C-alpha cells in the first residue's frame, strides 16, 4: 500500500510538470498567432494588387503566354505542393493538410496523371519518406514564421519546373486557410496555369473598356509579372498556413493542459484514498494487536 501511495504521488508530480510545459506552449502560441495574423494581413495589399494587375493583362490584352494558356496537349504531370509543420504538437494540423494532399494525389492517379510532390515542413517529408514516396523538392525550418525569401525560393523552383522542357503541366497547392481561431480548413488551389477569377468579368456593352498601354508589350510585361504573381500566391499560402499552424497548436496545447489538470485531480483523489486506506489499516492492526494481547491476559 505504501508503494502505491508513493507511485501515485510521483505520477501526479510528473503530470503537473507536463502541464506546466503545455501551458507555456499554449501561451507562446497565442502570442505568436497575433504576429502571424498581422503578417498575413500586411501581405494582403501585395496579393490584391498583383491579382488586379494580372487580371488587367489577362482581360485587356490578348496576350498568349505559356503561364496563362492551357497547354494544348493533355495534362500529364502535375505538381502538388503542400504545406505542413516542422514539429508536432499541433493537433491535427499537419495530418489534415497531408490528408487533403493525399486525396488530391489519389484523384490525379485515378485520372491517369503523374503526381510530383513538393513539400514544406518536416512532418510532410517524414510522412512521404516513411511510405517511400518520391519527393521532388522539400523546404524546412520556417513553417511557423515564413519569410518572403522562402516564398521566392519555392516559387522560383516551381516556375522553373513548370517552364522546363518536359516539366510539369500543372501546379496545385494545398494549404491551410485560417478561417478563425477555432477553424482552419485545408484548401486545394491551382496556381498554374493561371486561374484568375478575381475582378475578371466580361465587359458590358455600355461599359468602356480601359485601354491599357503596355510597355514594352503585353508579353514582356506578363513574363515579368507572372513569376511575381506566383511568389505572392506562395507567400500568401505560407502566411495563412503559419497562422493556422499556431492557432491549431494553441488549441491542442490548451486541451492538453485541461487534460493534465483533470488527471492531476484524479490522481490527487486516488492518492488521498490510498493514504486513508493505509491509516485505516494501521489502526485496525493496532486495535487487533491490542485485542489479542488483552485476551491473553
Amino acid at each position, binding site marked *: 500500500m505504501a508503494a502505491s501511495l508513493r507511485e501515485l504521488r510521483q505520477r501526479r508530480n510528473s503530470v503537473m510538470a507536463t502541464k506546466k510545459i503545455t501551458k507555456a506552449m499554449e501561451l507562446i502560441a497565442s502570442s505568436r498567432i497575433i504576429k502571424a495574423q498581422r*503578417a498575413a494581413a*500586411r*501581405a494582403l*495589399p*501585395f496579393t490584391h*494588387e*498583383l491579382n*488586379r*494587375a494580372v487580371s*488587367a*493583362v489577362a482581360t*485587356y490584352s490578348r496576350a498568349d503566354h505559356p503561364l496563362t494558356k492551357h497547354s494544348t496537349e493533355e495534362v500529364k504531370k502535375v505538381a502538388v505542393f503542400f504545406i505542413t509543420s516542422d514539429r508536432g504538437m499541433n493537433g491535427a494540423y499537419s495530418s489534415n493538410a497531408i490528408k487533403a494532399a493525399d486525396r488530391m494525389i489519389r484523384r490525379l492517379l485515378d485520372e491517369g496523371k503523374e503526381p510530383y510532390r513538393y513539400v514544406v515542413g518536416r512532418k510532410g517529408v517524414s510522412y512521404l519518406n516513411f511510405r517511400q514516396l518520391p519527393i521532388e523538392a522539400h523546404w524546412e525550418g520556417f513553417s511557423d514564421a515564413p519569410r*518572403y525569401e522562402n*516564398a*521566392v525560393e519555392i516559387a522560383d523552383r516551381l516556375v522553373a519546373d513548370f517552364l522546363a522542357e518536359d516539366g510539369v503541366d500543372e501546379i496545385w497547392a494545398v494549404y491551410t486557410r485560417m478561417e478563425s481561431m477555432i477553424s482552419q480548413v485545408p484548401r486545394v488551389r491551382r496556381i498554374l496555369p493561371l486561374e484568375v477569377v478575381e475582378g475578371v468579368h466580361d465587359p458590358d456593352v455600355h461599359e468602356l473598356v*480601359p*485601354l*491599357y*498601354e*503596355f*510597355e*514594352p508589350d503585353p508579353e*514582356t*510585361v506578363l*513574363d*515579368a*509579372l507572372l513569376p*511575381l504573381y506566383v*511568389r*505572392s500566391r506562395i*507567400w500568401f499560402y505560407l502566411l495563412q498556413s503559419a497562422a493556422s499552424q499556431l492557432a491549431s497548436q494553441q488549441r491542442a496545447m490548451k486541451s492538453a493542459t485541461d487534460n493534465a489538470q483533470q488527471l492531476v485531480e484524479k490522481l490527487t483523489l486516488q492518492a488521498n484514498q490510498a493514504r486513508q486506506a493505509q491509516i485505516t489499516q494501521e489502526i485496525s492492526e493496532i486495535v487487533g494487536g491490542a485485542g489479542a494481547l488483552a485476551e491473553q491476559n
Partner: protein
Amino acid sequence: METIRVEVVAAEGIAWEGEAQSVIARTTEGDVGIMAKHEPFLAALVPCAAEVLTEDGRREIVAVDGGFISVADNRVSLLAGYARVAGEIDQAAAERELAALEKQIEGSEVDDETRARFHRAQAQVKAAQLAASEHR
C-alpha cells in the same frame, strides 16, 4: 493641382501611400513620369529609386527591386518584392553591402540571387543619396 493616388506595395506590406502630383519610375524602356489622369498603363520596372512628388510638394524617394508600375482609375501602384522609403534606408549599411557584392560580381560568375541582391543594394544606395542631396 490635380493629384493621383499612389501606393508602393511590397510583399511585406505597404511601403508608402498617399496623394501625389507625379511619380517617376524607371521601366525596362526608360524613365516614365505619371501625372494625374494618366491613361491605364502597365510596365515592368528595373531596380531603381522611384520618385514621388507628393501633394504638398515634398519629394519621397522609394527604392524598389524591380516589379511593376500599373496605372488605372487615377491610381498608381508600384509593386515590388522589396520596397523601401529612402528615409528608412541605412545608407552606410547599404553602401557596404553594395561594395561587397560588387567585388563578388567582378570576381566571377555569380548566381541570380547575388545579382538580385546587388541590384537591390544599388537601388537603395541611389535612393539614399538622392534623399540626402535633397536635404542639403
